[in-house]
């Protein structure tokens, strides 16, 4: 077979301008909001009050035992009903695939970030919390000012690895017909009859980005190790 490089070069503006922009937006939005929600869930899971820790545990474990694709479908169809319920309207709300994808990935990643942050919080010695309380800070103040910054720094490499996985997983929005990087490649490939070239190119770009990112995470790991 003949490999047509021109097909790829023509597609590059669309692939990166539309596709990669969407992939990066989704990754950044889900990672930042997921991290906040995940940290909150981690604090909940570690709470001594069972009424708080048990629901958080159920949420995290359920999310982690079902496939992301199923979660994407769940929220895509559930969101209009939740929207209608919140606004009190009688008809399902039109949410759209884009918003639905951002909400889905945020809620899904929160479960994984929760487990990382929980390990991070547990890696900080108990004396730190006691010291905070002893100097008159409240529980929340010591969490925010003392425990969480340390937990976050200790877990930076794990969080980085998780963001790389999230970056790869965003390709699954393909099933909602959204135009992410892979979706853009598939669209052009189908239009031009050049699926082979486009898919190989998309794979190579993902490989280069994720490989470089994982090297950076490894460097971070080494530096964090030295710092302690």
């Amino acid at each position, binding site marked *: 077979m003949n490999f047509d490089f021109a097909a790829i070069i023509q597609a590059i503006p669309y692939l990166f301008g539309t596709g990669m922009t969407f992939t990066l937006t989704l990754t950044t939005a889900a990672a930042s909001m997921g991290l906040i929600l995940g940290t909150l869930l981690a604090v909940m899971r570690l709470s001594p009050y069972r009424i708080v820790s048990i629901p958080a545990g159920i949420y995290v474990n359920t999310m982690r035992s079902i*496939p992301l*694709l199923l979660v994407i479908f769940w929220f895509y169809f559930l969101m209009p009903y939740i929207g209608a319920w919140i606004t009190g309207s009688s008809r*399902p709300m039109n949410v759209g695939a884009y918003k639905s994808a951002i909400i889905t990935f945020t809620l899904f990643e929160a479960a994984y970030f929760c487990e990382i942050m929980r390990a991070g919080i547990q890696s900080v010695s108990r004396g730190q919390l006691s010291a905070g309380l002893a100097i008159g800070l409240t529980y929340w103040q010591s969490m925010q000012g003392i425990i969480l910054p340390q937990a976050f720094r200790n877990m930076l490499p794990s969080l980085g690895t998780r963001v790389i996985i999230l970056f790869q997983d965003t390709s699954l929005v393909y099933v909602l017909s959204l135009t992410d990087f892979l979706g853009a490649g598939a669209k052009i490939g189908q239009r031009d009859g050049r699926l082979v070239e486009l898919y190989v190119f998309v794979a190579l770009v993902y490989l280069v980005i994720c490989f470089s990112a994982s090297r950076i995470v490894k460097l971070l790991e080494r530096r964090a190790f030295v710092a302690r």
Partner: protein
Amino acid sequence: MNYDWSWKIFLDLSSNGVDTYVYNLLTGVGWTLALSLSAGIASFAFGSIVAVMRTAPSVTLHFIGTVYVEIFRNIPLLVQMFLWYFVLPELLPKDWGDALKQMGQPWGQFIPAVLCLSFYGTARLAETLRAGIQSLPGGQGQAGTAMGLTPAQVYLYVIMPQAYRIVIPPLTSEFMGIVKYSSVALTIGLLELTGQARAMQEFSFHIFEAFSAATVGYLVINGCVVLIMHHVERHFALPGKIGWKARMKLSGSAS
């Protein structure tokens, strides 16, 4: 807001006019199990080989193992699935490629899916196993060599039996991962559990019943994985290690 919730829908005839929805969902469970089991076994076998290569003293073996793992871990699974399904038949010699393309449902989808999940799972399991091998004290291997074992024997009789026991907990989540990743096969048209739920939702409009059923299906399958791995862990626990106590307690012979 009105949603017509009815569990009876599962007993209705599905779009093919022959089988009920519940029958279709169970076929989906069957394909999910078939996919996960074949990919799981292959990943475990080849993952062990790659993990040994990555820890071997030979530079060439180490390099090949590392390149393999980096390639398969750094490309999204969905892209890999498309490479196996759409690109591979084009790259093979023409008659082979045509033979692959002409294979009908469901084998034409099942074989690329198993290949994809196995290659991906191999890379992931190799990393888990490598961590297990490297967590062993170096003296274990040296002692084996000092006793006159060949490098292959050292791995077979000294290192791997211990490494496997150490990595059982992360191995459990990797196997659960394989069950979850198998859902990606729906993108190339294999009707496994998620695919069947999606098909049911499309034709019956009973969205939430269909996805609830799939969710319960995955929870049950992954629950079984956890139970089986607990059993494996207890069965292979060694005296003098932490896992042993749990085993004695369970069999009631602890004093």
